[in-house]
């Protein structure tokens, strides 16, 4: 009287409705399916609504003429929309790059100052951090624009600093280097060669140090090589570059590089704000290096400078990089606040383009894609740096 066991029992596996693997699969299918259904529903609504309002869903508008001009560039209103976006991306990159550079310098100075044994300097630095960190960056940018830069004296009685900087409410003009004579391209090329040779010398000196243990002086050697080649090339090509100093005229300034008031305000707001965050990261990273390291360095008889240069800072740098990269990312994203003060970076240009009757969904989609590209680029670079710098513990 043998009762036949069910098939699943003979195979040694639970029935499908009690099989954990099946249930897990089912659960995931249900959740993903739900998300897809909601997405399709939203997208269907979008398509219907756009169709009813006669808005096109393709990207053809990118080729149409923009109908607006961009200040401070050679973009004309008859140029296609995609060229406007390119100008915007370029401006975003410029303001973010300059902001990252300035914020890093100011942030490191203030972060180190907070740790200074000098009471006055340490207190002043913490006052800066506590005051700036707790104000929205947008408020700082708008304040810099309408309460500082637009209130500067007009170009007629602009203030000058040592002849290299002219400050007025129509922007800042800074002295710059510009090409003079035909030798400039050749000179630029030889500078590039000089840089490559200098790096090679630097690496060779390091290798030599690793092999023989003799002092390397690699920075000295590298810089020396670069300078010698540069000077020789400068003379050989017949003084190819010259300083361009800003010259104040009756109606404006000639020479130098001009920064629009919008650019100056955005840059100032971004770097003043981000510097307060970077200062905290720098301070925290230096404090995070264990005391034993400093004590050991002192016991070995290293000077204060050597202790920082060879023991504390290399370790602090490793701790610093991930949060620092986050701040650089934030600064790049915050450059989108230029919308409020009309600096023509990508968000502002997208907003204008939408205001001109171009379709909003596609415009914002492209905008998000561009920022994702910036974010991914910055995190890729940091991951690369991080990998080179992390401790190999084995």
């Amino acid at each position, binding site marked *: 009287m043998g009762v036949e066991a069910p098939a699943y029992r003979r195979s040694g596996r639970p029935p499908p409705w009690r099989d954990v693997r099946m249930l*897990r699969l089912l*659960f*995931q*299918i249900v*959740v*993903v399916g739900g*998300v897809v259904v909601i997405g399709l529903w*939203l997208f269907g*609504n*979008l398509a*219907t*609504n*756009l169709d*009813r309002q006669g808005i096109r869903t393709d990207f053809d508008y990118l080729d149409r003429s923009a109908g607006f001009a961009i200040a401070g560039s050679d973009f004309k209103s008859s140029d296609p929309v995609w060229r406007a976006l390119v100008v915007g991306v370029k401006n975003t990159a410029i303001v973010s790059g300059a902001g990252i550079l300035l914020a890093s310098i100011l942030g490191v100075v203030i972060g180190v100052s907070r740790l200074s*044994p*000098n*009471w*006055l*300097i340490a207190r*002043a630095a913490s006052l800066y951090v*506590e*005051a700036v*960190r*707790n*104000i*929205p*960056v*947008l*408020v*700082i940018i*708008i*304040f810099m624009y*309408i*309460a*500082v830069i*637009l*209130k500067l004296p007009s170009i007629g009685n602009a203030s000058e600093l040592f002849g290299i900087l002219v400050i007025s409410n129509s922007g800042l003009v800074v002295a710059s280097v510009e090409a003079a004579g035909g030798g400039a391209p050749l000179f630029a090329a030889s500078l590039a060669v000089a840089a490559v040779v200098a790096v090679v010398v630097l690496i060779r000196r390091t290798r030599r140090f690793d092999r023989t243990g003799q002092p390397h002086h690699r920075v000295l050697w590298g810089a020396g090589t670069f300078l010698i080649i540069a000077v020789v090339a400068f003379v050989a090509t017949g003084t190819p570059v010259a300083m361009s100093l800003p010259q104040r005229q009756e109606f404006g300034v000639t020479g130098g590089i001009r920064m629009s008031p919008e650019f100056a305000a955005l840059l100032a707001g971004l770097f003043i704000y981000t510097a307060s965050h970077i200062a905290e990261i720098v301070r925290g990273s230096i404090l995070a290096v264990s005391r034993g390291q400093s004590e050991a360095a002192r016991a070995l008889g290293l000077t204060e400078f050597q202790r920082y240069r060879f023991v504390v800072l290399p370790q602090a740098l490793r701790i610093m990089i991930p949060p620092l990269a986050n701040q650089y990312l934030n600064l790049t*994203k*915050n450059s*989108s*606040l230029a*919308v*409020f003060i009309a600096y023509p970076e990508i*968000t502002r240009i*997208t*907003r204008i383009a*939408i205001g001109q009757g171009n379709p*909003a*969904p596609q415009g*914002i989609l492209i*905008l*998000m894609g561009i*920022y*994702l590209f910036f*974010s*991914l680029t910055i995190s890729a670079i940091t991951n690369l740096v991080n990998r080179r710098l992390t401790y190999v513990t084995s």
Partner: protein
Amino acid sequence: MATDTSTLEPLPIPEPDRPAYRAKPKDWVRENLFSGPVNSIVTIVGALVIAFLAYRALRFLFVTARWEAVHVNLTNYMVGGFPRDELWRLWAAVYLLTLLGGMRWGVSVHRTRPTDGRAEASWRAPLRRFWPFIVFALVVVGLSASPVTAAALLGVGMTAFIGRVAGIRVPPRGVRWVTILFILGCVAAFEVMVAFGGVPYPDWRGLMLTLFLSLGGILLSFPLGVLLALGRRSTFPAIRALSVAYIELIRGVPLITLLFMAFLVLGFFLPPGTQTPSLVARALIAFVLFTAAYVAEVVRGGLQAVPNEQVEAAQALGLSPVKITALIVLPQALRAVIPAMVGQFISLFKDTSLAASIGLAELLRVAEQINGQPRFTGHGLQAETLGFAAFVFWVGAYWMSKTSQRLEKRLGVGER
């Protein structure tokens, strides 16, 4: 015969009852300001620069600045165009919240360590903890120059104090009830504002809107953020992929693109013929979607900090996966991330200023608009009007950052 000293117990060295070392002023100055030639030069140059900046700042604050634009618009800063006949609702809500908040604070005195408890119970504690708000109240009273405002604000302080005294008397068993009462009080305060001919939230303006957006944003984004964090740590690959995609996508774009999305495109995603939500609601949706991704990352940090032995122990006890998460992992994870959550709240509070980009008259935009009033156009009072808005933001954010540092100490995060 030499005694073998290695087995001897070391004699207990009596700790001398030394008073805390306090340098004489002269020594202190030498040590901290003039410890060497370089340091002395730095101090002197620094002091000159700081004195100059302080002189300019004080001269602006007390001499050259013309505060009448702020004085006239003080109510606009706080509530914008809120009907002045209905302002009593706002005061009622504020009084209710400070009373209950004070009670909740008084109750928490029980739970601090005995040594801290004494300091907590002293009358100096409110000063130490709430001085940014006291400065804020003094500035507001100074700017309004009205005894009514002064009395009303003093009343707020008194109410908080009464609540605190009452809270200290609540027996430890009643702590939970006070918390529930506080939450009910928040709902009641909201109802007082909007119900029975009140002002619906889409019409709120000024600081009130800023606070509404930040509070609403953090409360609504919290559950979503916790779900996303659990999703990111889940063992289901599909759910992990969805959560990671959402979090990284949102964290890769600026908040303003989401606000534009809510402003320009959100209406298109709704079924044809539906009424598009109000501007405030749309801004709130953008803030919630944005903050949830960041909350998720914060919570994920907390989840990673829970030792795996906790999960294993719970499994050994036979708890189901859902119960393990809800009863064992999440309570520990969330407790560890309270300070970081406050940090996230500070970010959101500051970011609400971006709502101005879609035309909402929150604090910053009110400040800008004042310069467009006929009475103040062309007078160049931007520094004053924006400066006051910056001050209000600063008070809130600074107080919260100090609170978060205190919580970090009290919860002992990072000390284990």
